[in-house]
């Protein structure tokens, strides 16, 4: 869950990392409060990457230009998100732009430092060097310094980057962040470092001990489509897609496999909907309600292979849901796993058919809703 630049910078600052002194505004009129420090940078505040390339950062030379820029930025969309705030900052003189990040690295089994001597958008051409050290106690400034040696000639910059990396690690563990990236990290004329941008990704799983993360999660959910908001509120994992086949599944891998099978059969999934985090009658009922209520969904495929989720219970739940259901959208069921034989019997007795394989389920679906 990515924080906006301004939230990320505030966080960095609260741990002693220098950032420019900026002002957050909500509309073009508020730009006047910025006073008269020009040239200035005016930047769209959004929760996804790639903003710079998408024209989300503008340099303005005077108040009129700033107001116009603000109006322009507030009208843009970035990965589907309209910015609700803008950050204005002095345009800072600097001698170099570096790239520095602290992130999670599966191969290192923990944390990694990424560094590139040429930051900004140039970092895409010259990938950063990586120092994966695993657990925080295993971070070694001197090892990072050695790694920096071949790519960073300026010993003074090296020392400051090493100290900054240590700080980013402290921040990541304190706030449960999975990424703390500064790009660009400016070298000022006096040699000091200043974070010109900040990309902080919070670990949603830590919301139970990080109220700030819980609050960010609430904000992030509000940005989702209404259907997804309702799914998440009911503890179902949902990602909205633009197809017309509602997929009710369990487990991330099985849900993706179902999506892929639909796509390969020429059908288009309307969603990624993983009910394994709430495999209860209420959870499945919500799943049906959402898909039955969504106009573009033409049919529903229930595809569940349960281990801990006992599918005889799922069958009973489906029996009850189907009995009370008013929607006429076709439903194809294919469940397997723990309790499968009892599940077959339950569905059979309820007049429902449990497809033996995903392939047969897809055939039934194609029969019900032929692909265009």
């Amino acid at each position, binding site marked *: 869950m990515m924080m906006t630049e301004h939230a990320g910078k505030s966080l960095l600052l609260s741990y002693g990392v220098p950032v420019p002194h900026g002002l957050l505004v909500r509309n073009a009129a508020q730009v006047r409060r910025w006073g008269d420090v020009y040239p200035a940078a005016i930047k769209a505040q959004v929760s996804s990457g790639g903003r710079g390339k998408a024209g989300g950062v503008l340099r303005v030379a005077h108040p009129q230009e700033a107001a116009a820029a603000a109006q322009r930025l507030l009208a843009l969309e970035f990965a589907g998100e309209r910015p609700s705030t803008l950050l204005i900052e002095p345009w800072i003189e600097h001698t170099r732009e570096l790239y520095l990040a602290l992130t999670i690295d599966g191969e290192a089994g923990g944390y990694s430092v990424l560094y590139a001597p040429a930051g900004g958008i140039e970092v895409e051409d010259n990938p950063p060097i990586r120092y994966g050290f695993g657990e925080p106690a295993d971070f070694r400034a001197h090892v990072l310094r050695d790694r920096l040696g071949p790519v960073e000639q300026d010993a003074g910059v090296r020392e400051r980057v090493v100290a900054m990396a240590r700080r980013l690690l402290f921040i990541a563990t304190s706030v449960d962040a999975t990424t703390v990236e500064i790009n660009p990290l400016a070298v000022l004329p006096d040699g000091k470092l200043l974070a010109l941008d900040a990309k902080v990704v919070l670990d949603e799983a830590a919301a139970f001990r990080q109220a700030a993360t819980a609050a960010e999660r609430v904000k992030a959910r509000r940005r989702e489509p209404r259907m997804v908001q309702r799914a998440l509120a009911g503890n179902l994992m949902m990602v909205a897609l633009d197809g017309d086949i509602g997929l009710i599944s369990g487990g991330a891998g099985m849900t993706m496999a179902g999506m892929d099978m639909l796509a390969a059969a020429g059908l288009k999934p309307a969603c*990624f909907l993983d009910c394994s985090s709430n495999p209860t009658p209420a959870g499945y009922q919500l799943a049906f309600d959402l898909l039955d209520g969504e106009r573009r969904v033409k049919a529903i495929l229930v595809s569940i292979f349960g281990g801990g989720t006992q599918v005889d219970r799922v069958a009973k739940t489906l029996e009850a849901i189907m009995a009370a259901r008013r929607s006429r959208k076709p439903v194809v069921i294919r469940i397997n796993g723990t309790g499968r034989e009892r599940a077959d019997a339950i569905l059979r007795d309820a007049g429902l058919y449990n497809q033996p394989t995903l392939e047969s389920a897809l055939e039934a679906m194609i029969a019900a809703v032929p692909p265009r």
Partner: protein
Amino acid sequence: MSVLIDASSRMLIYGIAGNFGRFSARDLVASGSTVVAGVAPGRGEAAVEGIPVFMDARTACRSTDASAAIVYVPAPAALDAVLEVLDAGCKVVVYPGDGLPVQDAIALRSAARRCGATLVGPNTPGLISPGKAKLGFMPSHCFIPGPLGVVSRSGSLSYEAAWRLTSAGLGQSCAIGIGGDPVKGLNAAEAIELLHADPETQVIIYLGEIGGSDEYALARYAARAGAKPTAALIVGAAAPAGKKMGHAAALVGSALDSQAAKVEALRAAGVHVADTLRNLVPAARAAL
């Protein structure tokens, strides 16, 4: 010993008194695993499903010689519970829970290594050596003994895959759910090495997905001299970029995260790759 567990493994269920713990106790006993102890701190029960219940893992292990554990506690309690079973001497520990903060996963991975133990998980159904032992909650009927060593990032997908393989007569030496989180107690590279070293495993079947870099560990393995034959299924072709697909690590952030890139890298390394479930059995047969 098969991989990590076998018929001689003496197992402990931490959190046996909860609903899922009870279900799992029944299921494990029914699967033929030797469950010798349960732990339920703060509960007063003497036994669950005929398994003696202890107040802490150390007493449980001392009293029963348990040396493998599965831990059913919610994520906020996982760090402490897994440290407890590690301290008690368990050498194979499964933590199936999802929603574990990455920071805690990192701490547990390190703690397990310091104890000379193997942590499987988080976010995994556990592992099974068909016909010998199971430490997890995958549906046993999907698995039969055989020559395929299975590594999977996803629980449910591994059941479906195993059921297809089993239905086709292709049995498994072992199936390890490494879990869908970015930091794992046992990662893909390490799981593959275990299967590589296992004499009963002839072919390695890998079930992967978008995001993360575990699949590239398989590619590196497959390309090296003396590697066992490999087959793989990589799901997530239909997933849009920039969206997390359930698993914490299942997100296409960069080009290397995509299903297409992974399939290409694996094929280049000589892995028999299925791009959907439909092709899994043929790919496995090709590798055999």
